[in-house]
């Protein structure tokens, strides 16, 4: 039996250890874990990001988190708390917290400070500032944190099969126990979990790309308006005072910018360009 025979065998697709059941388990574990982690990490990240307290703790956590062997943590939790869905989901959620937390904090830190100051100057309360200014600006990065967390959780949920939990990893672990006979089953598990990860990665990547694009779109339009306003003001000033007429030309000065060599993959940001990509 090879990989394709295993995948085409109707028996592989039915029953509690069939592919649909395992896929569903995998999605349930991963989804629950990411959701739990997001419920903890996003509010915590918002507080750290807004108040700028605990920045160092958050970034230290990110480095340490990468060093922790996910399998070790999972196995430890299962050994101490017993097998089953709850300890596994708990351990997966713990692993998913750092990427979401760090990206939420980073999103707040990278939020346009002019916008934040403007909000404050308009008399916004901290809560309004978070909800209407900082959080929208941080959303693309938060989504990309959820994306990293999801990939890590999907990968680790595979390993969870070793701890007698369900999910697609069961095909790998059960196949391993069958000896050489079980290799097609292991390979099927590997291919399925790889496909799952790639699909989730592309979906969340697409979402964060969309958000980023919309944000740029808005910012470019705003900036366009601002530049038009400035140019108009300068032109008015110039009209009022003829001696500064040549300075009005400064408002649109791509003249010398055009002579600078453009680095690969970039276009010089000489102002708003017509059309949105």
């Amino acid at each position, binding site marked *: 039996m090879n990989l394709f025979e295993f995948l085409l065998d109707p028996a592989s697709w039915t029953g509690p250890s069939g592919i649909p059941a395992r896929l569903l388990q995998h999605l349930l574990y991963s989804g629950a874990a990411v959701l739990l982690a997001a419920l903890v990490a996003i509010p915590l990240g918002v507080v750290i990001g807004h108040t700028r307290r605990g920045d160092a703790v958050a970034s230290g956590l990110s480095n340490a988190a990468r060093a922790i062997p996910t399998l070790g943590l999972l196995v430890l939790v299962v050994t101490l708390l017993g097998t089953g869905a709850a300890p596994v989901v708990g351990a997966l959620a713990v692993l998913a917290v750092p990427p979401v937390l760090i990206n939420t904090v980073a999103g707040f830190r990278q939020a346009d400070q002019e916008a934040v100051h403007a909000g404050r100057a308009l008399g916004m309360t901290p809560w309004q500032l978070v909800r209407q200014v900082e959080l929208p600006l941080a959303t693309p990065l938060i989504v990309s944190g959820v994306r990293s967390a999801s990939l890590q959780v999907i990968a680790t949920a595979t390993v969870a099969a070793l701890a007698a939990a369900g999910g697609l990893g069961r095909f790998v672990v059960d196949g*391993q126990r069958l000896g050489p006979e079980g290799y097609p089953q292991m390979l099927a598990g590997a291919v399925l979990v790889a496909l799952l990860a790639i699909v989730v990665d592309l979906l969340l990547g697409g979402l964060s790309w969309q958000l980023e694009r919309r944000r740029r779109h808005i910012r470019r339009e705003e900036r366009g308006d601002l530049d038009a306003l400035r140019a108009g003001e300068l032109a008015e000033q110039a009209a009022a005072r003829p001696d500064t007429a040549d300075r009005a030309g400064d408002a649109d000065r791509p003249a010398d910018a055009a002579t600078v*060599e453009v680095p690969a993959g970039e276009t010089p940001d000489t102002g708003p360009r017509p059309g949105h990509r």
Partner: protein
Amino acid sequence: MDLDWIGRNLSEGEDILGLLGLHLVLALTPVLCALVLSVPVGYLVHRTRAGAAPLLALFGIVYSVPSLALFVAIPVVIGTQILDPLNIVVALTVYTLALLVRSVVDGFRSVPVDARQAAESMGMGPVRRVLTVELPLAMPVVFAGLRVATVSNIALVSVGAVIGSGALGQLFDLGLRQAFYTPIIVGIVLIVALALLFDGVILMLQRVLLPWYRKAAA
């Protein structure tokens, strides 16, 4: 914690130390292989300009594949046995390469235009310019990627325990089967310690090998 267990397995069978050595070999060989490959590959990707974005997206997809899936699938590609530790080395090399190529491209992109133009106007040919000006200036970004790759490789080797060759990860399998948490804690502590140690080592190497970076930062 059963400290006697640690003592027994350190002195008699040298189990833990043996696994530690194997762990380092399995985790660090891929880093070296991938570093050597990633600089030319990354430079070529960088040079394709318009092609760089789709190529990097492709490497991103490779990087999103769970490690266990790669460990299981590698034998089909290179014809090894499933228990061969070479699978781990090859799989982690693929991963590290996917990560480092992006760092190399980012590194070359971070080279200031001024520096490149200065090199050109001093009459440097393209080869000399890339090797003596662009590459050294790109290296700090590459080193950042190298640190991430090394730390995550050291943690990832243990996943190999699921298919029977995880070096220190074997301690997790042992602990799970015997419902005995001492080996699990020993494994976690050693892996985290190794990861932090080698993170520090690379940071030191960076200070020694790239003194211009620290000056620039200061």
